[in-house]
């Protein structure tokens, strides 16, 4: 009876395997391919940003800071649970659970686990100044404007 039991086992095996493949193909449908998440952000003329201030770009959830030498961009998203940070006198604060950061994006208190990410700013091929939120840089690196 070996042949019969073999085909029976083989059939079951193949069905199981196919079922697994079918399940994976089906479940993959729940994960959209969203490549557009990490897009480049147009910064424009740095002179639009007053020197010595943080300006919030709402649609992109980041703060732009300009000083006399250059311009920088830091994430405005709290590293704890993703709320948008508010600017305080000497740093940032998260309204959700009270995490506090200093102006370098370092965590001072609260449940936030990581410091804020500073994003790379570069001049694109068309001459425009852009922010790349997919690339992080050290907190003291700035895009020189002078």
């Amino acid at each position, binding site marked *: 009876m070996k042949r019969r039991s073999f085909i029976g086992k083989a059939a079951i095996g193949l069905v199981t395997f196919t079922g697994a493949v079918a399940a994976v193909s089906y479940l993959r449908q729940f994960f959209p391919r969203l490549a557009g998440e990490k897009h480049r952000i147009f910064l424009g*003329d740095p*002179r*639009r*940003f*007053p020197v010595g201030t943080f300006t919030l770009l709402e649609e992109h959830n980041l703060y732009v800071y300009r000083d006399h030498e250059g311009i920088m961009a830091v994430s405005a998203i709290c590293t704890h649970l993703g709320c948008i940070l508010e600017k305080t*006198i000497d740093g940032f604060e998260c309204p959700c659970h009270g995490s506090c950061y200093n102006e370098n994006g370092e965590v001072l208190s609260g449940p936030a686990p990581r410091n804020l990410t500073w994003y790379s700013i570069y001049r694109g091929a068309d001459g425009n100044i852009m922010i790349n939120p997919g690339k992080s840089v050290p907190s003291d690196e700035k895009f020189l404007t002078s």
Partner: protein
Amino acid sequence: MVIMDEQRYRQRVQWLVFIGAGLLLLLLFGAWISEGMNREWRKVQKEYANLLKEKGESGNDLVERGIFQVNLPGFNRSDRCISCHLGIEDPGMQQAPQPHMSHPGHYLEDHPLQQYGCTICHGGQPGALTKKDAFGQLPETHWPYPLLEQPYLQSSCGKCHLAIFTNRPSVDPEDNMSGTVGGMDVFLKGKRIFSTEGCLGCHQARGVGGILGPDLTEQGEKTRHEYSFQNISGEQTISNWLKEHFRDPEMVSPGSQMLRINLEEEDLVALATFVMGLAKPDIPFEYFSMTTLNEFKGNREPLEGGAGFSYLCSACHGKSGEGKNYNDFKTGVPAIGNPDFLRVVSPEYIRFTIEKGRSQRQMGSWSRDISGLNPPELDAITNYLYQKNGTSGRTGLYRLKGNRNRGEELYDEFCKACHGSEGKGDVAVALNQEGFLQRADNQYIMAIILRGRRNEGMPGWSQLDDEKLVDIMTYIASWRTGSVFERTPELPEADLEQGALQYHFLCSRCHGEFGEGETGPAIINRDFLESADNRMLYETIALGRPHTAMFGWSTDLYNQEKLDLQDISNIIGHMRKSVTNELTYIYQGTNPGQVDEGALLFEKYCSECHGKSGEGVKAPALNNQEFLSAASNGYLLATITVGRSGTNMPPWGYGDQEHPLLTGKQRQDLVAYIRSFQRIHIKF
């Protein structure tokens, strides 16, 4: 053993069922009444039907009952106001009590109900069917766009009709573009206040303005959520917040640098109404007026100089350019309308400062990228300021004859400080000179006295009245021993290229490569060339100025090249052309002063107000690089000499009760020292 009697249990449960069913029935009935029959709008509709009946119309079905709405897909809403406001389009209901009253005015003719609905102008909650929810004014309604009461209701007109930089909406009944008649007076008053208080000096609206404060283009669309009412004690509404904010910005928004505006209550209301109307709503473009749409895109009528000054400069510099002193404002604000300033400043200086700003001060750059103003508009503002110097229309004075003795007194009072007694010369050129007086006729003399020589150090004297000016001119003319040659040569057409070469090789050594002056005076100078006619130029070049280093070029006295008519014409042509060129730099001109001596003088006389290294304590910062790039040595010399009345800058050329007179040499030393603060020469 669980002892429970089935019968008893069952009976109890049956009671439970009975009570439950009964309660349910009651509740269902109650719900039916409260939700179905007892609706607020039904009562209102019944009232309306009764009103109609009283007016003599009959029939029970004259009012269709039910929920009415206007579907507005363009606004993404359906307005149900008309379920209660049934009489809104009924002309017979003008005197009826609310909510039955018909709409006042002719608004519904221009804004048909089916196209506009109600809430786009009035605010409120379009989907609601009770008064409280529809008005949306109480916090528990959770509606961010409450019903607007008068006069704030007028702000809604701004959404579609407002063109900030043109006269729209106008009140001209003939104006079909976006004119509205009546009903907008408070809004338009607010617009006027906005344009005269200089709000755009710090704020931007529709692409024009400063960047110190937030952009106001869509300020009117902000909801209560976006304002902080922490420090507002009165009514917790947006209109009140705005009024309080105008009254005392720092109290309402701690850390704000906004200046206080002192306005009457009704002006505050008007301004608040205007600000609430600054919007860029997300509605189909057919609803907007053309001018408004154009403004959104940045197409607008160019701002005139006066308008530009008023919109952008007046908040800091004052409505008539009177500036702010150091008591009111930490770093002071220059009085750019000050007559003493206007008589020493050149238009290039003003234009440069507007374009570049002043680093480390709040005067920012107003170049197009930052402020949204076009170069012609910046020129217009420059001209507006410059024209205030009062020189226009007075050049005909040279024909008059004045009193020589009075002129002598006036000369000693005003002119001696630089030109020396009896015109012998000091830091400025000698006027009592044959060669000069034979070339320069009275027209030239009067023109120069009036407008001065900007960038050279000669201030204008337009603040003196006509009589005094004529007297001074008479006195100076009295030194003339001969008469002015009246021969006017026929100058051939100038060859500019040759002229440039000849100028470069022959004249630039003394007069500067760009005619800005070296050992000789600045001759490519707008004021000079506008005052001097070709005759004077020709003669001066041809015959020279005896007893000075300017030799005549048409003689061969010193073995120099002999220039003929064509050559001189070329040079004159070159000079006149050059003055129209775009400036690359503002030229500093010469100054023979000594830096070290100037340093001592500065410390003694200037440092108390201007700071030990010119950083500015109670007076403007003199070490500011933009300032030094805009100011020529002549400007500095003239300012030091004549001071600035109305401010604390004394006239050091004349001295006053508290301050000594500084000689010309001393003043030149100070200029040299101030010039030494300059590290970079900023291009125009």
